[in-house]
């Protein structure tokens, strides 16, 4: 079957999709977007978390056919998504990107070409930068899913308590970090967001 949907602001169509294929398989193997990770493929680890019409879901549990006509944001589009949100909603009070807004935006090529070895020059979402700065990335396999989930948390709760962060990220397994630095990263992103908004 053919599936038409929007990924990170671009209209995409996938042909010859087998009925049993997951959104995760289509993203990784057909769209060339391997950022969403395949760690358990049964919705237990959260490594493949993407946003489907704004809602965080495990892409491994979504049948490809279910995304017909819908909007998907993956970690590859997170920086752009965050930027659009900031521009469209500088106060952070409008609680996310509307479907209409999402449909209007387009992925834009970065002015700078990211360094192929270390990615320097890439534009990052605040949560992405915070993960790097806080040392929350080790092997990094859980990172894309955690970033998508954490970004969504900060979108609806700009000042999360530790209990809020733990609750929001409880569907994402990490085997390397012991989570402490992931908590640090989310706190850091929230603090930077707060500083930015208060103009400090």
């Amino acid at each position: 079957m053919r599936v038409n949907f929007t990924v990170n602001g671009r209209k995409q169509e996938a042909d010859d999709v087998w009925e049993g294929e997951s959104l995760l398989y289509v993203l990784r193997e057909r769209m060339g977007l391997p950022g969403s990770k395949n760690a358990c493929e049964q919705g237990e680890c959260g490594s493949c978390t993407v946003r489907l019409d704004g809602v965080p879901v495990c892409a491994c549990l979504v049948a490809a056919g279910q995304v017909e006509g819908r909007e998907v944001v993956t970690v590859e589009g997170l920086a752009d998504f965050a930027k659009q949100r900031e521009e469209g909603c500088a106060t952070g009070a409008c609680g996310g990107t509307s479907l209409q807004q999402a449909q209007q935006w387009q992925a834009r090529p970065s002015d700078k070409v990211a360094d192929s070895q270390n990615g320097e020059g890439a534009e990052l979402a605040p949560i992405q930068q915070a993960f790097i700065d806080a040392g929350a990335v080790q092997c990094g396999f859980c990172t894309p899913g955690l970033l998508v989930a954490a970004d969504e948390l900060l979108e609806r709760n700009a000042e999360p308590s530790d209990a809020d962060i733990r609750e929001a990220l409880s569907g994402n397994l990490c085997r390397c970090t012991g989570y402490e630095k992931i908590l640090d990263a989310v706190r850091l992103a929230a603090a930077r967001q707060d500083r930015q908004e208060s103009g400090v």
Partner: protein
Amino acid sequence: MGVTGTPTSIKQGSKTKGGIGESTLRPDGTLKVTGEFAYSSDMWHEDMLWGYTLRSTTAHAEIRSIDTAEALAMPGVYAVLTYDDLPTEVKNYGLEIQDTPVLAHGKVRHHGEPVAIVAADHPETARRAAAKIKVDYAELPVITDEASATAPDALLIHEGRDDHHIGHVPHPNIVHRQPIVRGDADEAAKRADVIVSGEYVFGMQDQAFLGPESGMAVPGEDGGVDLYVATQWLHSDLKQIAPVLGLPEEKVRMTLSGVGGAFGGREDISMQIHACLLALRTGKPVKIVYNRFESFFGHVHRHPAKLWYEHGATKDGKLTHMKCRIVLDGGAYASASPAVVGNASSLSAGPYVIDSVDIEAIALYTNNPPCGAMRGFGAVQACFAYEAQMDKLAAKLDMDPVEFRRLNAMEQGTLLPTGQPCDSPAPVAELLRRVKAMPLPPEQQWLAAGEQADVRALPGGLSNTTHGEGVVRGIGYAVGIKNVGFSEGFDDYSTARVRMEVINGEPVATVHTAMAEVGQGGVTVHAQIARTELGVTQVTINPADTQVGSAGSTSASRQTYVTGGAVKNTCENVREKVLEIGRAKFGSYHPAWATAELLLEGGKVVTDGGEVLADLVDVLEGESVDLELEWRHRPTEAFDLRTGQGNGHVQYSFAAHRAVVEVDTELGLVKVIELACAQDVGKALNPLSVVGQIQGGTTQGLGVAVMEEIIVDPKTAKVRNPSFTDYLIPTILDTPTIPVDVLELADEHAPYGLRGIGEAPTLSSTPAVLAAIRNATGLELNRTPVRPEHLTGT
């Protein structure tokens, strides 16, 4: 540019930024947060095929026949290979003993053993084709424990091992045995005022790295193959792969692809040979990606263990003697079992002064899943048991458990059971003091927010199982000792290639090693070392591959020590060459070139007094320096097979934990409130990464304390829980705050004085949590993981 650029004025050199001791950020961080970092499962090739492995559905059986015709006939299927298709006489591989079949021949020895492999144009086609392969099994009785393995008439798991019980191994179903005898434990026991003994059971833990086993093999035009794979040691894989393929090593070109965690689980071969065989057969690139179910069968686990311990102490609290017997279940194939036995026995007394010991450790062959390397490697199981014993002794003597440990703590100079003196700082008492001195989390934190309990902070969490009634708190302590690096005489070397040149007007160092970056941060540290030694800001870390000499394994807490040491050593030699060039070019301009100690700092050649002699750009203009050198730590020696004596280890690391738990005694649910750790790291090359390693290791220890276990049916030896639904690893809700106190007491024998760090925190975390649960409940709890039924007696 010539001699004209020589500085004539004297100015202060500036320290190079990003050197050792700084918390520099990961060079791969940006790629990892943008989803662009290419993990082994992310590879894609035009026209590639997907491989899939058919695995045995039974644990022990003769294979009467395998019929692949129906699978081969399926549209989209390119190859179906069995044992008969292997190209050479070499059909087995293995880390220490080559006893593991590439594909089962004659019989299968454990549940999930690879029997056949398929290549097809879609992963689902490959899976369906594998399901059509008909294997006729004639079931054999399963051997699952010591009694069934060593019974006089026991079936041999590996035929032809009859002659293997030379001297010290009493049965061919025992892979290895290591006794250690020092002093006279029976005689010393007579001096004991109290004696405690216990039998302990340690469950089978899984590494559960998140990135599944995966990789891609691409057939080469020369008949060779290019393999891109996530592994812990490229050259060890290469040595095992090439003979099976019938290729010389230079025709198997391996490149490390992105590794999603390892923890010991990637020391053994998984899909490497299978992908190469399918690629060479089909002439197409073949990608294999295990799903989580397969991953549980695709790598070895931590050895489950039974441990018997006896300790004695005088009434003033001094240990008199220790006796122990440790039985490790190695499963169907040897993997790293011999070395795990060496560690378990030599570290079985823990970080304590005990003059008289009688120790025996063995690893069995059984039909259970194969076990091998996992973070902590044999020391973890022993630590769980000896720390429980310390608490028992303290209780019997009515002493504080921390004071009792400090009274018996080893220190620099203490002899280990092997007779080897510990010749570097051993701050065991100090770590215990520090971890105890950390402030405790407030009582009833779940009430802190207001009148109502925040159920999220209680055992059971959002399940609303309790609002605080029946919840009791406990505190427990533990400390452990882990060896660093490979022991028992292993030639534990590493190789580094370092190049220095001017690129775009900047001095640049390029570091090339075969070190597997598995997430631990070796790439960060190598760049820091190169900056420190060569005084340059720009360092390029080349991808790890087999075009450079072996780096050894990313395991045993050894990579920063050994490959870091290799990078340091090569940089020092490169620096000498750079200075030679400088001396030749500019030596006549300043006498310091010939007389002073010279350093490279901030892109300049400076004297140890800080006087600048030249810009590196000027020295290196038109020249480059390129060296590849091997580096070794001090040699070790094998343990005597009968007495266990010998200088077997090169270095030790020490960590101590304090666990605070709250237990819902009605439902048997445990919430770990805090797990504080104090660890000596010798020298923190990257403090941020050091703390990350300690917190990660601590969490894996927490996991095995309260939830993690591969459950094997004792009647059938089949694995019952190969999924993340049924094998539980800690989530962010299960993991408490982990405050870390890092101590830096340099080991004068190690590069920069550093000490391997990754494994030690995994040791003491588990017994600390168990001690805290015992403290809360008063129960004996001799088994890990602790399950609700153990706490409620149901």
